[in-house]
């Protein structure tokens, strides 16, 4: 396998992994606070549609991103209302959000644009374009590191870098701030937090809102960040569920989430290059096998073969204040 191929693979890995990573961190915040979130998929989808629709209408990808985030936050609020305030079943609420998003986006898109549930294609002015990091061309001649920096690290849209930055930020918020400590406590033992005089509901709403924000960015990336240029029905194509698998794989930890998403992204990048296996091992690997790998790995982790994945203890249970 030659050097260029490796660089291309890593480049594709980073691009594929970043929406997964954002969604995975969204799930992390929500589940760490004790709210299961199956609705990552739906939130991303709504954001993808609104971001593309408004980017097209206003000509600004940034406005699109804002509206996309607003849409995802709205769905988060619905999920919060159902599962925190009304103490409904979190899984059912999440599934409902996914169905709602799948239907609503197509119906509204059809009403607005009359293109069979799509948005028109965006021109390069109204989407996030790839940016070249400073010194990329100067460093390129440096052996090994130069091409890696110039080709893999540089040349992504700002949303990819936002996804990467979200990892240390999430770690810092969750493990180095008072808010983070309380948020984690609310997912483990809400009664203790309540006894300390801190509102469980408010903390959980905050966690769900952060999840909405991150899903909003992820969705906007799918539809408005190069190479994407528009919304197509159901375009999230299961990424919300892969993100949940990655979350379990990462055992609900931010840095591990990064590695899990990069690994899953790498598998997907590899899936596009069956020729590599043919050249290296003279072997035809069915692409379905590679796309199933993330799930297989998750099952292995869940079964307890590679350490144990223990979810937050109060996850999925609505908090009822004792009287």
């Amino acid at each position, binding site marked *: 396998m030659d050097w260029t191929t490796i660089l291309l693979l890593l480049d594709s890995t980073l691009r594929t992994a970043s929406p997964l990573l954002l969604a995975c961190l969204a799930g992390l915040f929500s589940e760490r606070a004790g709210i299961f979130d199956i609705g990552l998929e739906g939130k991303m989808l709504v954001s993808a549609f609104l971001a593309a629709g408004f980017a097209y209408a206003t000509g600004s990808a940034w406005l699109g991103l804002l509206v996309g985030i607003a849409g995802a936050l709205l769905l988060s609020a619905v999920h919060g209302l159902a599962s925190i305030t009304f103490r409904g079943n979190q899984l059912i609420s999440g599934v409902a959000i996914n169905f709602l998003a799948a239907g609503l986006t197509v119906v509204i898109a059809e009403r607005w644009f009359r293109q069979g549930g799509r948005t028109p294609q965006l021109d390069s002015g109204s989407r996030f374009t790839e940016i070249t990091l400073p010194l990329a061309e100067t460093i390129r001649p440096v052996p090994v590191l130069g091409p890696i920096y110039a080709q893999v690290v540089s040349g992504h849209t700002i949303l990819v870098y936002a996804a990467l930055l979200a990892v240390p930020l999430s770690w810092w918020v969750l493990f180095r701030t008072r808010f983070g400590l309380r948020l984690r406590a609310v997912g483990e033992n809400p009664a203790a937090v309540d006894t300390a005089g801190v509102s469980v509901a408010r903390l959980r709403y905050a966690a769900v809102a952060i999840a909405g924000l991150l899903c909003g960015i992820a969705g906007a990336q799918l539809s408005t960040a190069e*190479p994407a240029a528009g919304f197509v029905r159901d375009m999230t194509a299961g990424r919300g569920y892969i993100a949940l698998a990655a979350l379990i794989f990462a055992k609900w930890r931010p840095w591990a989430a990064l590695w899990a998403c990069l690994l899953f992204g790498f598998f*997907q990048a590899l899936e596009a290059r069956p020729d590599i296996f043919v050249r290296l091992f003279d072997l035809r690997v069915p692409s379905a096998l590679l796309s199933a790998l993330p799930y297989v790995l998750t099952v292995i982790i869940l079964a307890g073969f590679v350490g144990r994945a223990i979810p937050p203890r109060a996850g999925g249970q609505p908090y009822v204040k004792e009287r």
Partner: protein
Amino acid sequence: MTKLSTFLGAAASVALMAGAALAEGPAVIFDLGGKFDKSFNESAYNGAQRWAEETGQSYAEFELTAEAQREQAIRRFAEQGYSPIIMVGFMSATPLSQIAPEYPETKFVIVDAVVDAPNVRSVVFNEHEGSYLVGMLAAMASESGTVGFIGGMDIPLIRKFACGYAQGVKAVNPDATIIANFTGTTPAAWNDPARGSELTLAQIGQGADVVYAAAGGTGVGVLQTAADNDILSIGVDSNQNYLHPGEVLTSMVKRVDNAVYEAMAAGADVETGVVVMGVANDGVGYALDEHNASLITEEMKAAVDAAAAQIASGELVVHDYMTDETCPALTF
């Protein structure tokens, strides 16, 4: 009380309409995706509109929005007395094979699938022939000698496209490399433009400079990424040349509009049985219009038209993947 009487009145008029069963003329059922999908369904819609404008008559229509409506929609039109009832999409084959014998007086037309019943006209397309022609164009336009194919869901029908395409490429340039990728193995593969973009970039990385997308909504991402990276792409089903003028080499068109138009024009006396639309009867072909005129040279056009004539006369036979699930020009 007023509300109740309005409701009763409405119910009564519905019952009257249903009881009358005097509805005449054709009905069209568009598949999931809707009649403005820029592709398959829109092509059917254009055919129906052409008939309506030419004859001044009208037709009934229904757009499926959920899988569950399929059987209901067919049955309702049959109940109301429409004939022929035209439906596009292979997914309707199963419900139609159950319903057709129940309404022996009604004629049904299904596009893209075969239903074996005496009152059904099944229209199928020789996609491999059309793909062969665009494959020739791809090989002639390619400078690198490497061309790509991106399919949607990995099903025999899409492999049929890939196989025809590969044969066309090899016919022009026996040394050409053909990279074939499929988006996935679930229906989600039809609507994943981000994945389409990644696959296109991966093929560009392997040197491809023409990419043929037979992937539904995923193809939007393929065409877009090809245009962004200044390589050529090939659209599918309906003419997609206009999506990126000057950067889409051509489109493999399936004349679903002709199939619908012909069925409507024949009316209730439409001939039943299997109808194969191929290069010979203009059922499939390549698109040439003002958007790609600069990309197709005279020699390319002459070569492709010659091959089309040979296919039409039976002199040249393009292998159909679906007959034996093998492809002479491409290994999957």
